[in-house]
């Protein structure tokens, strides 16, 4: 962001015609305050992160040794399926929405989100969605077990959980669409005077583009699962060859949603990292314009690469060629981003507080995920990698030390602004090192397993895969347990600690509007719009 000067923000906390939050539970049920809703989203996603994580640990415990020791193969499939659905739709997406709710109004100088009641509705709809999904684990026939991609015909064999899971997805999708509309309307209409689009913080930019992706693809996904529903209950045959349909059609529709979905999870992460690296380098973001254009290019390309998830379904040569080349193209704007972050650090004045540590780990480890992504984009090689642990390693690298680390970096960056307290830096450093080491112990060996030929989504394996699976499982438990520390640090910080200043980090001084309001940010901010020059 270019140098911003504000006046009038001081008025934010001494206006007294504003009322504070309502008392008790009603505050949380009826709130339309972007900060309250942001907090609820973040807490919700943290809870989901632990539920989804517990499921991942069931999986890794079963895979600790060859032979079936703990669970039935059917239940194992439920664990991998629901783990993914919860992590994607319940943990990562709501976490970025929570950050958006908290930070977008603060970063653009708006008093709140543009559609506050819709905001409340989006959140509580999400709670309903995940209550249904978790309920589906306890109905006759067991939970959904066909993988988070819900491919037919297999998914049609699901028991009573089937309509529950589909309806959960509908609700979560509706929640996302409403959230996205809210974010777009807010950014388009409530920017402070003087804040042109090309002066917006990168986090706001990446979320604006993400919101458009959400509106474009969530209805597509809703359509696909609705067709599954009618195939199951109303004897349509959209996805059954026997009635003139095609199971592969589902995969095309799913991945037309699914690939942009990947960027829905990672673009806000790019935004967070683009805020943090300049702050702790004490230098302006390198190539701001290029960053915006790269984000937009990635978003556009995400619509024309979907079939690289399905190189083995038997596409014609021309199709495989097209999707291979378009996929490789994504490396260019992604490379630009990585180079720009590196150039931002170049000749900076770096310090390594916890947000910066997580952002740097993101930079290295997301790049590794990018390399394996490029390798899988090469269609002939993908015939070997497809549906092995290599892809499991790849997408966990971009989602865990990628998206999740960026979210944690964001939490450590803005937590003092939210609570008004500094958190325990020493513990946060320990949390970082434990996470950064264990995440690699957990996921790096999975590259080897995939190359050695271990398929994904299997509950048991031949003895040649035993060694790296054991290493990976040890890493998984290390990573899972380390996250308890994260919760402890957050609770401790919410309860008290050294007072945080307005700009919290010395590098954040003059780095954006959120650092001009007091810490903790008052319940109502920017009643009077600041002026950005």
């Amino acid at each position, binding site marked *: 962001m270019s140098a911003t000067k504000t006046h009038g923000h001081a008025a934010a906390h001494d206006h007294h015609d504003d009322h504070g939050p309502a008392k008790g539970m009603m505050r949380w049920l009826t709130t339309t305050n972007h900060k309250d809703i942001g907090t609820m989203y973040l807490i919700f996603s943290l809870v989901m992160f632990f539920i989804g994580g517990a499921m991942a640990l069931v999986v890794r415990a079963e895979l600790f040794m*060859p*032979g*079936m*020791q*703990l669970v*039935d*193969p059917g239940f194992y*499939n439920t664990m991998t399926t629901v783990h993914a659905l919860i992590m994607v739709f319940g943990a990562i997406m709501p976490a970025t929405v929570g950050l958006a709710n908290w930070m977008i109004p603060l970063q653009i100088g708006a008093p709140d989100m543009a559609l506050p009641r819709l905001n409340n509705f989006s959140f509580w709809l999400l709670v309903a969605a995940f209550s249904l999904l978790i309920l589906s684990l306890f109905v006759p026939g067991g939970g959904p*077990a066909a993988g988070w991609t819900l491919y037919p015909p*297999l998914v049609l*064999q699901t028991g009573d959980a089937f309509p529950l899971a589909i309806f959960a997805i509908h609700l979560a999708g509706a929640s996302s669409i409403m959230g996205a509309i809210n974010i777009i309307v807010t950014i388009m209409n409530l920017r402070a005077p003087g804040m042109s689009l090309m002066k917006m913080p990168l986090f706001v930019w990446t979320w604006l583009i993400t919101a458009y992706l959400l509106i474009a693809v969530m209805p597509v996904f809703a359509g696909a699962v609705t067709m599954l529903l009618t195939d199951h209950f109303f004897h349509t045959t959209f996805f*059954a*060859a026997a009635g003139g349909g*095609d199971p592969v059609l589902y995969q095309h529709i799913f991945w037309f949603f699914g690939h942009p979905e990947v960027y829905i999870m990672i673009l806000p992460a790019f935004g967070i990292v683009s805020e943090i690296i300049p702050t702790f380098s004490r230098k302006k973001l*390198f*190539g*701001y314009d290029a960053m915006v254009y790269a984000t937009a290019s990635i978003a556009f390309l995400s619509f024309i690469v979907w079939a690289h998830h399905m190189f*083995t379904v*038997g596409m014609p*040569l021309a199709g*495989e*060629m097209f999707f*291979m080349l378009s996929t490789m*193209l994504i*490396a*260019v704007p992604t490379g*630009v981003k990585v*180079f720009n972050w*590196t*150039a931002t*650090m*170049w*000749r*900076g*004045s*770096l*310090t390594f507080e916890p947000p910066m540590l997580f952002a740097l780990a993101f930079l290295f480890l997301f*790049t*590794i995920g990018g390399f394996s992504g*490029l*390798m899988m984009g*090469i269609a*002939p*090689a993908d015939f*070997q990698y*497809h*549906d*092995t642990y290599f892809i499991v390693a790849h997408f966990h690298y971009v989602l865990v030390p990628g998206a999740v680390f960026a979210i944690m970096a964001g939490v450590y960056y803005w937590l003092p602004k939210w609570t008004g307290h500094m958190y325990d830096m020493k513990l946060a450093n320990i949390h970082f090192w434990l996470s950064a080491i264990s995440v690699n112990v957990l996921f790096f060996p999975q590259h*080897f397993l995939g*190359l*050695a*030929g271990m*398929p*994904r*989504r*299997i509950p*048991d394996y031949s*003895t040649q895969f*035993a060694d790296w699976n*054991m290493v990976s499982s040890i890493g998984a438990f290390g990573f899972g347990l380390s996250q308890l520390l994260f919760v402890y640090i957050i609770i401790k910080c919410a309860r008290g600690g050294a007072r945080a200043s307005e700009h919290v980090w010395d590098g954040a001084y003059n780095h954006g509007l959120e650092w001009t309001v007091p810490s903790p940010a008052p319940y109502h901010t920017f009643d009077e719009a600041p002026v950005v020059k």
Partner: protein
Amino acid sequence: MKTVKRALGAISTAALAALWSAPAAAAWTLNLRQGVTPLSREIYHLHMLIFWICVVIAVAVFSVMIYSIATFRKSKGAVSANFSHNTTAEVIWTVIPVMILVAMAVPAARTLVKIDDTSGADMTIKVTGYQWKWQYDYVDEGVSFFSTLSQASNEARQLDSGVNVYEVENYLLDVDNPLVVPVDKKVRVLVTGADVIHNWWVPDFGMKKDAIPGFINELWFRADKVGTYRGQCAELCGRDHGFMPIVVRVVEQAEYESWLASQKAARQAAAAPAAQTADQAGAVAAPNANQKTTVLVANAE
């Protein structure tokens, strides 16, 4: 404690097993195998090419990052510079990746064309995926059979079976009736599914393809080394997805022919008494029922 002991025992057994049987147990494997077909080797080399390109880029990018982190520290008195643009640098790091990508795309496209060419095959085998087994049809020979997880593996893989899986030969990678193909012949495989989508994959042949109900996919391989090659279903297909391995024996042409002859003879022997019964009962039973009996007998065999 018991688990730890079992785990330690498991590791040492694995090490022993690795010494014993080379093909199945290769502990701590790191890389893709080269395989035994021209295509699998080409894919391997492509994989190594991209891998090394990625390594070179990674070394370059990571060294700049590490250098920045080590050098431009506030604690070392670094003062931040004031630049935020450099058009030359930005053009360079956009154009060079494009050139690298083109360099990768050319050999990849060439390989893709070869993979796609299933013409001129010496023989055709139809593979059908079932929950949870494979069926192989030698379409020109009238030989057809099912291939399921071996009895020993199946017993060992039950929850808390108490069997030490390291003592089961080729645990989870062994079947009752392997597919048998001749060496140095172009084999076209037609892949389809009977119930849900499966995926037929033998890593040593470099090829995997979805087995989709109602559709027929093609792949081909030409194995140039005699041996037994093992693979697994590579598309989630339900509860026992992890328990429908693929075993292919690649044999000399002569051995293949005698195997084929014995298969045909066995089938005839099995079908003959059934056909006789059918003739005798023909007057009273409906012809459809008789046909069904014949098929059942053949399958049971």
